[in-house]
């Protein structure tokens, strides 16, 4: 008797949560719809300048047009691959440098002020130098994306390596572990959560680096579409590129989140 009442209460509770979720999702969709609708109306009524702000229907037209002739796919894939490569290089490179610093206390003390300066410095200011060094093309764009995230990754991950509880290392040392084993079995796994969270930050930074890089040098890519559209006053194209970037960046961020929850579920399986 009591048990059935708990069961019904639990069902009620689940039902409530479902309704709540549905309300949130429908409000979110409504907001999105309202945004595009009012954009369309305001632009058609010429309350905002249609030349500058364009309107969703025209952007959709352009989207169809550029999808059919394959150019959107080309530009998107160039930008996306630059971003992914820059992101991977930045994250892996930063983690690797953090490993080197962890390995050699001497080196980490020597390099400390340089890292501080590099970190504080706005990396985008190095743009011209990067272009000269890597040539006006895709390598420069990737270098920009990588540079933006590598320093902060190094600092954050190195700090995490240092914060690993000494006692975990002590456990391994009592078995006669080498430095490599300490890193492999204690330090690195203890820092996976930190590495994943820097990955989330790096996704954003890689996008910034790629778009700025494309502004500066590219002949292809979404950043190029933006800057070109701006120069020839084709704001339809600018808006389209912005929307594509927003969707892709959100998608990448969500993938990292999915990876995170997968890894955490695997290590803290209940």
């Amino acid at each position, binding site marked *: 008797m009591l048990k059935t009442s708990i069961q019904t209460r639990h069902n009620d509770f689940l039902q409530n949560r479902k309704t709540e979720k549905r309300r949130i999702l429908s409000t979110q969709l409504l907001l999105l719809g309202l945004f595009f609708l009012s954009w369309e109306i305001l632009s058609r009524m010429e309350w905002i300048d249609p030349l500058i702000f364009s309107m969703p229907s025209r952007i959709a037209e352009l989207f169809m047009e550029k999808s059919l002739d394959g150019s959107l796919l080309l530009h998107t894939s160039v930008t996306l691959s630059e971003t992914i490569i820059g992101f991977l290089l930045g994250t892996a490179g930063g983690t690797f440098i953090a490993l080197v610093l962890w390995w050699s206390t001497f080196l980490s003390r020597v390099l400390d002020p340089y890292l501080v300066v590099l970190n504080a410095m706005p990396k985008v200011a190095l743009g011209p130098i990067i272009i000269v060094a890597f040539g006006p093309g895709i390598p420069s764009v990737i270098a920009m994306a990588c540079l933006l995230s590598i320093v902060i990754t190094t600092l954050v991950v190195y700090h995490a390596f240092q914060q690993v*509880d000494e*006692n*975990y290392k*002590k*456990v*391994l*040392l*009592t*078995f*006669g*572990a080498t430095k490599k*084993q300490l890193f492999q*079995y*204690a330090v690195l*796994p*203890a820092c*996976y959560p930190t590495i994943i969270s820097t990955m989330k930050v790096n996704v954003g930074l890689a996008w910034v680096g790629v778009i700025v890089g494309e502004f500066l040098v590219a002949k292809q890519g979404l950043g190029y579409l933006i800057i070109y559209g701006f120069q020839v006053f084709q704001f339809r194209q600018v808006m389209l590129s912005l929307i594509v970037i927003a969707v892709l960046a959100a998608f990448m961020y969500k993938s990292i989140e999915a990876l995170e929850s997968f890894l955490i579920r695997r*290590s*803290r*399986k*209940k």
Partner: protein
Amino acid sequence: MLSLQEIEKIYFTEENAVEAVTDISLSVEDGEFVSFIGPSGCGKTTVLSIIAGLIPPTSGRILMNGTEISGFSKETGYMLQEDYLFPWLTIRKNIELGLIITGMHNEDTVEKTMSLLAQLGLGDKADAFPSELSGGMRQRAALVRMLAPEPSLLLLDEPFSALDYQTKLKLEDLVSHTLNSQQKTAILVTHDLSEAIAMSDRIFLFSTNPGSIYNVYQVPETFRRMLPLEARNHPEFHPFFQRIWKELENVENQHPNTP
């Protein structure tokens, strides 16, 4: 047999050099269980870390069965105050880690270790994560991890101090029984005098500033071989406890600066 000869350890800091322990000479027979007790700051853990090879002595020698050892030795196992099982590994993986690092990981040793795990009542927990186990269970798993590479000398650094009283008494019996049946030599560092008396054959009392051996006590024959819980109930336990307690107080009063 383990013997320490005139071990000395000095810690250096920016301000000064502190003599942590000085002139520590002692020997422990095979199969013997000894305890180090003393006020905090008496260097008992420092001596244990030196034996484990975790820190080098400033001077002095450590001999194991007649040969000098420096640094890590396969013959020693170390148990910390808390279990420090890696939370991202299952109990099985945690325990196998000791075998992997010592290079002894093979089917034979794994099987032996798993049967020891079962003996200690954790057979069904092998694939659980540490967070799913109680404090006592985790410390038992840590005991298995230490015993897996079959060390002959066990160094126990207050392994029961983080447990509640009842779990602690049970685990004392279990450790005592397990070590006895495997004929291990053990050194226990503790701040709990009755634990030291209940578990050991001999007790080294340390004094502070600098840490040195103040006195050595032979635990009475009458309850020395008993399990800790039985020993605690033996009529001669308390008189012996009182005797050492007084000396412990003397040691602490010698140095009123230390709490």
